[in-house]
């Protein structure tokens, strides 16, 4: 204890001495606390910088942007003899954003029309699935709705075929709804870079991400003006703000912006920073889509690639950086022009333009394209189908962010006809009968032989993106089932032919639940015996049920699956009258097999997919499956043609001159009105019903057939005339008994038979009257 006191004193003295010395040095830095504080600060700062650095490098080394996928329509193929109206071609050019001139076109994306039928066009470069197609000038003449001449623009050399680039019809967007098209720095014109740097950051190549001189200059300018009139941010800072930070104006954000700009400059070259900026910058709005990057802006405002812009157009784009909404050129052309002229002046000051060029460019108008090249999804039902088919091969994230280019078979010309038909006919039906209201509809159009979906409408308001009735409205199909039943029977030529006699008398069936079912014909009458061909043509219910039960319900189900129906088919007796549910898309799949003479081609809408760089990823080739015997299907198609001449769809014979085939369908209480039909080149399925499944008051003939007819009146259709397969022989048959007859006998009809199944029994021949002979002659 005694020893400890002096030690304490000496310690106190020492401490006092040290303190005195520290204060005397006045060097806070060496103060223990200050030092510790500083060390902690340095560590924290370093840690924070490391955190920011990771944030930057992670983003920059990975996928910087979510690129939306784009959906393209079919490319319009041009060749001599192609059906194309002048209006259709004009519409196609407008949708592609081509600029109409009065003088001869000189650049890609321009055209002129002479004498309202002669087109001179310079197409754009385009990367198709099978390679890049270079821009080409050509002349095209349309005469009587056909291409009569297709020549090169500057010579008389004929072009046998030319493929226009496809119209971009939709985008599959990430949640940010940012639209952008990437461009590499070495593809950006030098004048564009010069203009950008002249306006936004003249000392870009001198500073390290922050430019104190610019900040001071901006501060001074703002102080003098009493508000914010000038920004001191470098391009790097702007990029940091856009990529990593929120737009709020706080000191913290400003500090972060400066630190990150510095880090970005340490990690990446000026070229990388500039290229990223050029692709990132926000330059406008198209509906819900944000336009990002100069390349996309160039296409949006000028319908042309950045590389092909004039210098005044580049100046306009650079001018937009300051305020894309304020200077929006389509809304505020005067403001936009003034701003463009300012940029041109700066370019002149930088030596990029001579005085003469400056004067020349200032006199030009903005040169905007007539219409934006893309808009919001105009075909919601079709795009829904595209997405569903894509999801089989791509996950949702890839679809929304990988910038896929999806090429489809969608035909905007046919789609617009289908939409017009839906609007016209639905309103006609409701106006002509006031008890009919709230009708809904689906209309699907495909190419008969290739099974490619060309158009689809799923709502009476086609642009409404709601319930997709074409795919998801699962409704009873009524008499649309009948061709499948008759096909099942006719595949047994030893047992059934078109001249077989079917029983059309009252029928009572005990169902599995011990209930009695008595099917009725639509007219509530019975005809006794009826030839098989007539039973189908006139859509008789009772003989069809009998036939269905004879051939077997499971065999009918197999036939439906062979025809392309994927759903499970119930095997109860009333299924023979279509008392089971299919979607319009299922029905289209089924009837496509009839249209393609027994080859089932699963309906598809996607042709090819490319990645964001235009490299091929996947093709969806045409695939066929010979599902049904061609002879049996030939017989059924013969009857389906008869349906449109003298059967339940006989109104078609008057409405359209072409040979067609099809079948009407009506369900109980007139809930569903169907028509499925085809020509040689087009197949369409029309459905009209109500969402609450109540009665429409329409039969297949009075509803869906009218819609189908209206559409086909506006399409280029070729007569359905299938080649008669080998092993089919025609015979003259007595129309009432089905026995063999002769051409000149009364009531004789000529029918096709599978070889060996021809009737052998002769019918009594009464000589045909003069009227019958005249009818035969014309037939």
């Amino acid at each position, binding site marked *: 204890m005694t020893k400890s006191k002096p030690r304490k004193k000496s310690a106190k003295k020492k401490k006092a001495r040290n303190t005195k010395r520290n204060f005397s040095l006045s060097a806070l830095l060496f103060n223990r606390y200050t030092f510790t504080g500083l060390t902690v600060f340095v560590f924290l700062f370093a840690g924070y910088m490391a955190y920011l650095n990771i944030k930057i490098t992670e983003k920059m080394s990975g996928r910087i942007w979510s690129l939306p996928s784009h959906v393209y329509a079919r490319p319009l*193929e041009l*060749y*001599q*003899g*192609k059906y194309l109206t002048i209006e259709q071609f004009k519409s196609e050019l407008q949708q592609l954003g081509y600029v109409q001139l009065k003088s001869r076109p000189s650049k890609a994306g321009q055209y002129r029309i002479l004498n309202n039928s002669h087109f001179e066009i310079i197409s754009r470069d385009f990367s198709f*699935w*099978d*390679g890049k197609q270079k821009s080409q000038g050509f002349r095209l003449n349309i005469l009587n709705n056909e291409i009569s001449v297709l020549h090169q623009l500057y010579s008389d050399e004929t072009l*046998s*075929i030319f*493929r226009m680039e496809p119209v971009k019809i939709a985008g599959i967007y990430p949640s940010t709804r940012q639209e952008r098209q990437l461009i590499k720095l070495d593809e950006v014109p030098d004048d564009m870079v010069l203009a950008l740097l002249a306006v936004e950051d003249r000392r870009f190549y001198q500073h390290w991400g922050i430019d104190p001189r610019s900040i001071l200059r901006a501060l001074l300018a703002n102080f003098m003006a009493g508000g914010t009139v000038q920004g001191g941010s470098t391009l790097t800072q702007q990029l940091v703000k856009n990529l990593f930070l929120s737009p709020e104006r706080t000191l913290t954000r400003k500090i972060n912006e400066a630190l990150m700009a510095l880090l970005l400059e340490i990690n990446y070259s000026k070229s990388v920073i500039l290229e990223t900026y050029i692709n990132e910058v926000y330059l406008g709005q198209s509906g819900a889509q944000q336009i990002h990057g100069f390349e996309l802006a160039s296409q949006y405002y000028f319908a042309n690639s950045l590389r092909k812009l004039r210098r005044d157009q580049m100046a306009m784009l650079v001018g937009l950086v300051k305020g894309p909404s304020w200077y929006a050129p389509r809304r505020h052309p005067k403001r936009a022009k003034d701003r463009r002229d300012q940029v041109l002046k700066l370019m002149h000051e930088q030596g990029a333009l001579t005085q003469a060029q400056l004067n020349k460019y200032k006199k030009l108008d903005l040169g905007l394209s007539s219409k934006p090249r893309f808009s919001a999804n105009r075909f919601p039902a079709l795009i829904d189908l595209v997405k569903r088919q894509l999801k089989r091969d791509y996950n949702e994230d890839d679809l929304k962010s990988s910038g896929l280019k999806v090429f489809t078979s969608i035909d905007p010309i046919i789609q617009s006809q289908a939409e017009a038909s839906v609007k016209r006919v639905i309103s006609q039906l409701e106006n002509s009968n006031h008890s009919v209201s709230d009708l809904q509809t689906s209309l699907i159009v495909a*190419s*008969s*032989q*290739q099974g*490619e979906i060309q158009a689809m409408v799923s709502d009476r308001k086609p642009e409404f993106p709601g319930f997709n009735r074409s795919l998801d409205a699962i409704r009873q199909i009524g008499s649309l089932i009948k061709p499948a039943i008759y096909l099942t029977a006719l595949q047994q030529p030893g047992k059934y032919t078109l001249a077989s006699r079917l029983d059309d008398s009252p029928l009572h069936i005990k169902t599995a639940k011990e209930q009695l079912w008595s099917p009725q014909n639509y007219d509530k009458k019975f005809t006794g015996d009826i030839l098989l061909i007539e039973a189908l043509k006139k859509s008789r219910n009772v003989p069809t049920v009998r036939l269905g039960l004879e051939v077997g319900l499971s065999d009918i189900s197999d036939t439906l699956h062979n025809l392309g129906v994927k759903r499970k088919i119930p095997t109860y007796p009333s299924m023979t009258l279509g008392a089971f549910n299919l979607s319009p898309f299922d029905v289209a799949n089924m009837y496509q097999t009839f249209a393609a*003479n*027994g*080859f089932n081609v699963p309906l598809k809408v996607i042709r*090819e997919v490319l990645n964001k760089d235009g490299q091929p990823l996947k*093709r969806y*080739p*045409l*695939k*066929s*499956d*010979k599902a049904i015997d*061609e002879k049996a299907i030939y017989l059924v198609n013969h009857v389906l043609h008869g349906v449109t001449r003298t059967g339940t769809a006989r109104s078609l014979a008057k409405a359209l001159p072409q040979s067609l085939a099809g079948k009407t369908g009506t369900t109980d209480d007139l809930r569903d009105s169907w028509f499925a039909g085809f020509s*040689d*080149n087009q197949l369409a399925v029309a459905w009209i019903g109500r969402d609450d499944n109540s009665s429409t008051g329409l039969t297949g003939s009075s509803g869906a057939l009218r819609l189908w007819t209206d559409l086909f009146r506006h399409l280029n259709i070729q007569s359905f005339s299938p*080649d008669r*397969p080998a092993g089919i022989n025609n015979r003259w048959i007595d129309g009432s008994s089905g026995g063999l007859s002769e051409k000149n006998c009364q009531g004789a009809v000529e029918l096709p038979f599978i070889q060996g199944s021809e009737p052998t029994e002769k019918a009594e021949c009464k000589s045909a009257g003069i009227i019958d002979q005249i009818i035969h002659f014309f037939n």
Partner: protein
Amino acid sequence: MQISWNYRSNNTLLQLIPVKHLLVFLFVLLVFTGCAQLKPATVKSTESILPVADSVKLPDVIKTLLAKSDTQYFDDNFTGSLATLERAVRINPRHAEVWSRMAQVYLKLGNEEQAIQHAKRSNSVIKNNIRLKAFNNEIITSNSLKKSQEMSN
């Protein structure tokens, strides 16, 4: 001695061959000539593209696409060749030559099932082109046989 070619002359060639024999000879010759025309073209190798002679009646646009497809085919770009043929089918699906070439390209792609199906489609729209039909039938039979052998193994 002066040789007379009068058929009444004793030295004429015709008199050396009995008329009956000559008629039989002519008949056989005709039959053989006919058979030579009708004889199906044998497909020596599936490497070869269809004879162009069959395409003479095709419209220019189809010929152009067939020529492009051939170029792609010989460059071993079979999917490109198929895509070009699909363009031709979209323009007019009634040209049997196009379907037949698609069958051939499918063979190259190793898809025998689709080769058979496309050969059948070609046959379904064929008019009077016997050579083409024989070509398609060769694809159908040889590959159906191959398939059934593979299945039995």
